[in-house]
């Protein structure tokens, strides 16, 4: 799980002002690993990350020097082309559902129903130029 959290923090890192967490820090590793249809691809991808890290002399992905995680993640593309795009899409989807993230970004944290949204009534004087037009469809 640590390796996955570490990979997710590379995909969505914490924001530089510290207001937004990284995806790993936001607890998404557990959430993604709990999805049965994702699990096999995740396990395979994580094994590959460890193997590539060992090739660089580290004990595993988590033990890499801070600057190397990103490079190793990108290296997976050659051997498992679907892994990184797949996990990226899943991370993005999960990240923007995290209440803390949505709150910080001033995005709604509740479902649309039942409250809905108030939309200002429109001042239709904005239509005046169109109202001034002649009819322009072909009659028959």
């Amino acid at each position: 799980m640590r390796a996955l959290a570490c990979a997710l923090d590379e995909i969505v890192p914490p924001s530089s002002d510290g207001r937004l967490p990284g995806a790993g820090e936001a607890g998404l590793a557990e959430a993604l690993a709990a999805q049965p249809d994702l699990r096999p691809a995740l396990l395979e991808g994580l094994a590959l990350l460890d193997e590539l890290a060992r090739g660089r002399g580290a004990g595993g992905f988590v033990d890499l020097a801070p600057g190397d995680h990103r490079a190793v993640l990108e290296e997976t593309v050659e051997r498992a082309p679907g892994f990184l795009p797949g996990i990226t899409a899943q991370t993005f989807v999960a990240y923007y559902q995290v209440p803390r993230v949505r709150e910080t970004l001033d995005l709604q944290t509740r479902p649309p129903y039942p409250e809905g949204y108030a939309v200002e009534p429109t001042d239709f004087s904005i239509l005046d130029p169109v109202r001034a037009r002649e009819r322009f469809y072909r009659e028959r």
Partner: protein
Amino acid sequence: MADEPVDVLIIGAGASGAAVAWSLADTRMDILCLEQGDWMNPAEYPSTGDDWELRSQTDFALSPNARGRVTDYPVNDTESPISISNFNAVGGSTVLYAGHFPRLKPSDFRTRSLDGVGDDWPIDYATLEPYWAENDRMMGVAGLAGDPAYPPKEVPLPPVPLGKLGETVARGFNELGWHWWPSDSAIATREYQGRAPCINLGPCLTGCAQGAKGSTDVTYWPLAERNGVRLATRCRVREILVGDDDMAKGVIYHDAEGREHRQLAEIVILACNGVGTPRLLLNSASSRFPDGLANRSGLVGKNLMFHPYGMVLGLFDERLNGHQGPVGCGIWSHQFYETDPGRGFVRGYSFEMTRGFGPVTTALWGFLNGRLPRGAGHHEAYAALSDRLAGLLAICEDLPEPENRVTLDPELKDSDGIPAPRIRYRLSENSQRMLEHGTARASEVLKAAGARETFVEAPLGMAGWHLMGTCRMGRDPERSVVNEWGRSHDVKNLFIVDGSLFVTSGGVNPTSTIQALALYVADRIKKNLGNLFD
């Protein structure tokens, strides 16, 4: 199993099936509608839960193949750049539709005479006018009278508010001096006939939890049932039976457990949409109709029209409150609707504004379009996209071409073992040029409205949601499947009322016209009851 015979059997409870059922209820005949889907429960629609955006990819996906509900049938659309979108339930595809509700225009009924393409309809704008008006009242249509792009008409409810996004796009049209107008929308903008008013939830394409959108499960069906029409769900019709006299006798259908039933009827009305109806007719081949029922013209399934869509998204600097309000209802423009030979294509298109994306959809769109990186720069890129996208859709008239067609797939079957439809469709040169023109003009509008960048997708691959032309109407039995009031030329007690009837597609969303046609056919049936089969 054989069920009690009925006077009228309607197949399909969607946009057109509901309208025809309600109208025929006046006759006090014994009317039964068989629908393969269920009643939907709005309390379970995605907008009631935190995962509202995700469910548009799963149990509320637009494609029946992605959705895969037991009530769906699969469609082989691999030979089409545009895939089929529909819904199978009481309400049919109106459960998912946006409710953008334009009518066809006078010139749409005469494309052969005016522009030398397609065919003229056997009816005209004036014929449908009273039925459009009646349908607008039944569906609860919001809008504003006075649009110079249309003959004068009344609109029952006040327009959907444009919101900041809509006003921004409207200013773009004004800047260029181009036509736009608040769309006619099948959305109750105030309480209407027992329906609660729209509260701007946003995700109309996954069903309206508020019940403000005019899907026929909340408009026509409650009234039709109250007037005595019976609606049986989870009944999937496999084939229509025909006698030696070439009259339809009834149907064979499967219930929810897959059991076979035989339902006899005096009149059979097909309302299964532009794909479901030809599929059923082709599945009803017999010794008297070896090429499919009511298909002596050979035209059943041919001339499939979609409306190729060009989608242009504009990226703005300011937030637009984009996902608040009915997603597809705001503004239309008919600036480029009528033929202008100088444009390099015949016929034309309309624009429909679309509102913005929710947070998750924004992230996915950004990822798929290379606008949202991993790692460094991610947060800045998301902030630049979030709630800053507005869209215009160019809805292009699709001309009828016999090669674009629905046939039966030799292998694919639904869960009852009934052969599934197979779609073969290619974009014509004319459509291609129209799409290019439409997306270029849409980009101009969005730029004039202040967009700093635009993104184009054309044709929009998922947009096979307007299904038309596959059992066209006409006076000549050699060149049409049904007559000028929806009765099969070959089988005199068989009627069609759905989008299959369209002779040409026009360049606007079709449902208002589909339902007006259904009401018109019902009216003709009522007027001709004494000699209906002559």
